[in-house]
């Protein structure tokens, strides 16, 4: 049996885990191609207008896998740590896709539920039961599939913390490589903040990463910091934050500003992204009080290339000029 994993949303976070797990269950895994014009316009056509662009793209990726696979993998990721949630869209995703599945002639959906909200270890049983019920595996085989998947994910995260990005590690993820590189001493460290499904999707962000590298950015991304450090850093608000992925973003910006790790931050957020719309207030406040230049870049399916290039050029130019007087004094 062939199972399709849409190259969207949590793909950039958990692909090694899911791919290994499904392969160990004896399934062939197929991923959809990089987001392209056709995929995005499919998604935009089908999805509810007010949804954020990454969810729209997800619909498109599901459609791109039609006819190529026997089932689509659309897990319901409710919570990935204790006393926390992911964005509500992840909770409702299988239902949202199921609502259009007949109409679009999508293959059947595989929708295991992952919920670690009450008990952090519970997701193991959720996956073991999924393997038993859907594919008739024994508990022992399911456990060994799970262990292989956990190892793959650990290796992935180790490489990320060592400084590589999901674009380097996940197969064929880059839309474009930078055409030239600016000399090391002229580069600026720019923190690229945002959800992996926004910043690493080259088509949705108009090739943002390659463009920044061409403009002389040494990119720092949240994935380069250990998860525990991010969580620790995100505790400067009077209440436990309950969105894990936004907590990581908060943690990253706090970590970067506190340790002076970046010269500036570009914060990529999707239009109508619920969590980002509120977390934005906290992030912008943090950057302001720590005197780190921050540019919020809102993207959606209508984002124009020219507008984006102009804005990041202006921002990087500003960073370049900002440091010059200081160097002159030195």
């Amino acid at each position, binding site marked *: 049996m062939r199972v399709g994993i849409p190259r969207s949303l949590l793909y950039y976070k958990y692909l090694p885990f899911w791919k290994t797990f499904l392969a160990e269950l004896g399934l062939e895994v197929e991923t959809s191609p990089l987001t392209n014009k056709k995929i995005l316009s499919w998604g935009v056509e089908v999805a509810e207008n007010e949804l954020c662009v990454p969810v729209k793209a997800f619909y498109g990726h599901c459609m791109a896998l039609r006819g190529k696979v026997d089932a689509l993998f659309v897990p319901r990721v409710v919570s990935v740590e204790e006393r926390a949630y992911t964005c509500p869209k992840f909770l409702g995703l299988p239902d949202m896709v199921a609502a259009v599945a007949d109409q679009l002639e999508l293959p059947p959906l595989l929708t295991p539920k992952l919920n670690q909200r009450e008990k952090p270890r519970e997701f193991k049983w959720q996956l073991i039961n999924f393997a038993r019920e859907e594919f008739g595996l024994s508990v022992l085989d399911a456990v060994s599939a799970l262990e292989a998947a956990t190892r793959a994910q650990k290796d992935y995260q180790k490489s990320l913390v060592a400084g590589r990005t999901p674009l380097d590690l996940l197969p064929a993820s880059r839309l474009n490589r930078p055409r030239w590189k600016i000399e090391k001493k002229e580069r600026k460290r720019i923190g690229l903040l945002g959800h992996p499904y926004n910043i690493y999707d080259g088509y949705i962000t108009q090739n943002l990463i390659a463009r920044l590298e061409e403009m002389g950015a040494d990119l720092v991304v949240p994935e380069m910091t250990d998860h525990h450090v991010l969580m620790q850093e995100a505790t400067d608000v009077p209440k436990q934050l309950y969105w894990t992925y936004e907590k990581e973003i908060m943690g990253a910006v706090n970590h970067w500003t506190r340790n002076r790790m970046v010269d500036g931050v570009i914060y990529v957020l999707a239009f109508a992204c619920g969590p980002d719309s*509120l977390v934005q207030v*906290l992030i912008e406040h943090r950057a302001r009080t720590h005197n780190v230049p921050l540019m919020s870049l809102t993207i959606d399916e209508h984002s124009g290339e020219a507008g984006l290039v102009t804005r990041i050029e202006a921002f990087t130019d500003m960073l370049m000029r900002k440091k010059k007087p200081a160097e002159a004094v030195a």
Partner: protein
Amino acid sequence: MKVTCPHMGHLHWMLDDLFGRLGVEYVKPPPTTTKTLTIGAKHSPEFACLPLKINIGNFIQGLDMGADTLIMAGGHGPCRFGYYGIVEERILRDLGYDFRFMMLEPFGDGKWAFYKTFETLSPGSLSLRKLWKILKVSFTKGRAFDQIHKRTLQVRAYEVNHGDTTRALREAEKMLTQAFTTEEIEEAGREALALIDNVEQDPERRVLKVGIVGEFFLLLEPFSNFGLEEALGHMGVYIERSVWVTDWIAPGRDNKIYGFHKDIVDGKAAPYLNHNVGGEGRETIGSIVLMAERKFDGIIQLLPFGCMPENIATSIIPKVQRDHDIPVLTLAFDEQTGRAGVITRVEAFLDLLSARRGLSLVGTNA
């Protein structure tokens, strides 16, 4: 200490009662108006949901009236509501206001923390037992308010003299505010209901039966939806609404405003949305199914623009609509929304519903 709280529908009646019993000075912000929203929207993030913008407006007006302590309800996700407090405090402090900020987290999250919040408000004499008793009486009052508002939505469609029901409601509200003990509240509740029932009605009138579902703030706060329910009533539409303030505070259990337990609603939603997605996402789907089964003519879904749980529901509604053959009108609101546009769309929708019913009646006669 002068406490203020944002408005939400008739929640302030309940708060008035509660703070009175606790002996806390309550600065009631002026009723929400366009001015409130303008102030709030100016200082809120652009893509935040409408309720947050109105909250900010209420808080600023409350602070300007001399409040020094702000109370905001908390929550633990996954919808944006649980983050409101953190963000609102940040925004107001950045504006230069000085105040004490208190988040009232749900009772289930920790009874001690919940009690502590009230203990700080009313130090010294408040025991856990006393607090529980006070909350219970105030809650009874809240339920009585819900009952009379619920009845109003149904009676208004049949009223003979335009405006009679609204006048009776104001009278009934006054009656309830003056009730103090549980017995008095129950007594006043019965009399208030009778007052509304006694409005001169035309039982022969053929009315449309419309369900209102969606996100709680938009449903509970008439300002935010341009008083849609009253307008619908005057157009001769019988209304039931899926969420009420007492349901919202303590859902499930005994608060069956229309006789349906939360589990039944969730069960009806299950084939379409089989998980809680925060807010009223699941309740919206479940209520639509229930109302369709109870032969409502149509459904109106209200939500703030960008509301996450409701957007999930909106994505699923087309399938529910097809399966149950019920028309649904979705209306999203933000500070740019104009009343005329909303009313025009609602009128067109009602035309559609009348036409549908006309056609089906012809069908049965033939």
